[in-house]
């Protein structure tokens, strides 16, 4: 009798773990897509996941082998995580009533255990035929998003997008901390190209409208563009290595590694404030070798945001990139940095600002796009940070650019300058023009005019001299670039015990 019972169990499990019909497996393979269980094996340490609840969901419901989602608990980098993973071989990973309930339950588990929640998405969206059972009700699909919002900042939430994430389903990635998208296969959209053509008359391809590359470089909905599924999964594992399990814990410290060899920091930063340089090279010489993990690399490239380690300590870097658009802050760069700062602050990751910024962009185009509103969003996010906050003035920090990069008024734990630093409302050229434009116009002799302007430039430069600012205690220290890494490592260690409440209130009125 027992043998017979075991036999039945074994048969059922085999049926469940095989997923949908073989034609769907073949279709997946043709698109370079892995079966959901292969993905999970790659994700978890040593390919093991011992807990899989509601595995039998829909197993007795007619023609389905199981439901279109797998939910599991396992380990990533030795840390417990909860996972939901769509199975695109079962009804194209679409959402039925059981799918939604399974997702809600694994979310509830992640919340109770206070461990990271991962969403491995590959889903065609809601099953219209099941809508009454999964769309409008109290434990319908809306609950998934409600839970995501509730858990945001409590536990890390990671989305890997392997295929479509359509209509309502597109909000799962939107509420995650990071969205890793597989090039060519992943997509996000509210209405498919077919629907767009029918409803608004637009003819467009899926790649153009909601493809992975578009979202990672234009819309900013994607954070990391992965070449294939393997890279996407290893990226998620790598990302989690910078994070604690939840907001109450701190990131793990590892052994220090020297930065990669190359030009010295002094040689990288040109003295002429107007000449661009590559901030990536600067970061490479500053952080532990191989530790830089960039967020939104392809989006708003005039600002660089990413995690790294300095002497084994996890930090978040917010750095202007003078090589792109002069490092000027735009609508998208303000948005990108604000979001990154919030992410670091939620999970106790100290933030280092590397400033070389001419200010916020001006002109009709950006004013109409609401640059003030978006700039306010960045300044608000940077202000209410309670993790260690270090402002490094690498070169220029002009106007509200100084404010956005955690200047002295925003209570950084320190504002330190390199000898190349220049802090001012505006650069010498603009300032002299602003103050003396009438006088300059009055001088008729061209030689005399140039002489006058040069003299005023010189006076202005002396007025904003960095040693003068240090003497006035505006900045806390001037350090040579060659000892910046050492200085930061030392300060990060001292600031570790920092604890503060930013403001007594319910929450701010966000300038979004």
């Amino acid at each position, binding site marked *: 009798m027992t043998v017979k019972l075991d036999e039945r169990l074994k048969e059922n499990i085999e049926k469940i773990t095989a997923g949908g019909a073989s034609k769907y497996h073949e279709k997946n393979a043709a698109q370079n897509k892995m079966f959901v269980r292969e993905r999970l094996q790659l994700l978890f340490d040593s390919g093991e996941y011992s807990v899989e609840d509601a595995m039998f969901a829909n197993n007795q419901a007619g023609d389905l082998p199981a439901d279109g989602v797998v939910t599991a608990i396992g380990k990533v980098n030795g840390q417990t995580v909860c996972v939901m993973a769509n199975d695109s071989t079962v009804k194209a990973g679409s959402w039925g009533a059981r799918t939604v309930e399974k997702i809600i339950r694994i979310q509830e588990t992640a919340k109770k255990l206070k461990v990271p929640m991962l969403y491995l998405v590959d889903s065609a969206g809601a099953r219209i035929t099941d809508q009454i059972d999964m769309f409008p009700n109290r434990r319908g699909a809306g609950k998934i998003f409600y839970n995501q919002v509730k858990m945001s900042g409590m536990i890390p939430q990671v989305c890997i997008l392997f295929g479509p994430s359509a209509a309502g389903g597109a909000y799962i990635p939107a509420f995650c901390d990071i969205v890793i998208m597989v090039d060519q296969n992943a997509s996000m959209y509210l209405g498919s190209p077919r629907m767009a053509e029918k409803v608004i008359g637009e003819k467009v391809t899926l790649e153009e409208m909601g493809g992975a590359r578009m979202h990672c470089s234009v819309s900013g909905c994607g954070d990391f563009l992965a070449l294939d599924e393997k890279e996407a999964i290893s990226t998620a594992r790598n990302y989690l290595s910078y994070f604690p399990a939840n907001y109450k814990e701190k990131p793990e410290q590892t052994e220090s590694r020297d930065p990669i060899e190359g030009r010295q920091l002094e040689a990288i930063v040109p003295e002429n404030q*107007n000449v661009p340089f590559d901030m990536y090279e600067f970061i490479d010489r500053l952080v532990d070798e191989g530790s830089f993990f960039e967020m939104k690399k392809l989006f708003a490239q005039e600002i660089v945001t990413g995690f790294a380690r300095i002497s084994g300590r996890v930090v978040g870097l917010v750095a202007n990139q003078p090589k792109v658009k002069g490092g000027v802050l735009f609508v998208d760069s303000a948005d990108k940095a604000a979001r990154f700062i919030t992410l670091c602050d939620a999970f106790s990751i100290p933030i280092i600002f590397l400033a070389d910024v001419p200010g916020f962009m001006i002109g009709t185009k950006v004013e109409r796009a609401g640059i003030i509103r978006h700039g306010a969003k960045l300044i608000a996010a940077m202000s209410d940070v309670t993790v260690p906050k270090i402002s490094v003035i690498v070169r220029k920090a002009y106007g509200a650019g100084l404010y956005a990069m955690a200047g002295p008024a925003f209570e950084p734990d320190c504002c330190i300058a390199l000898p190349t630093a220049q802090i001012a409302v505006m650069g010498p050229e603009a300032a002299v023009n602003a103050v003396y434009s009438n006088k300059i116009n009055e001088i008729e002799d061209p030689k005399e005019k140039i002489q006058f302007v040069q003299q005023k430039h010189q006076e202005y430069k002396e007025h904003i001299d960095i040693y003068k600012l240090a003497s006035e205690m505006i900045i806390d220290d001037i350090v040579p670039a060659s000892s910046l890494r050492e200085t930061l490592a030392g300060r990060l260690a001292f600031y570790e015990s920092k604890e503060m409440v930013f403001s007594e209130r319910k929450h701010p009125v966000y300038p979004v």
Partner: protein
Amino acid sequence: MKEITASMAGTVWQVLVAEGDTVSAGQSVIILESMKMEIPIDASEEGTVAELKVASGDFVNEGDVLVVLK
């Protein structure tokens, strides 16, 4: 035909190529002056300069075509 556009609003400071020149991917073709910074505009792929749409001193807005490659 491939168009090289301005990455941001500014004034054309230097035109580094002439019609008929061949350019390689990543080569700077124009330098804008904006926000008191030099903003190099690079070709994203190789080609031959078919047409220069701007001259030194012109104001350009973000997205304006600067150079057409063939």
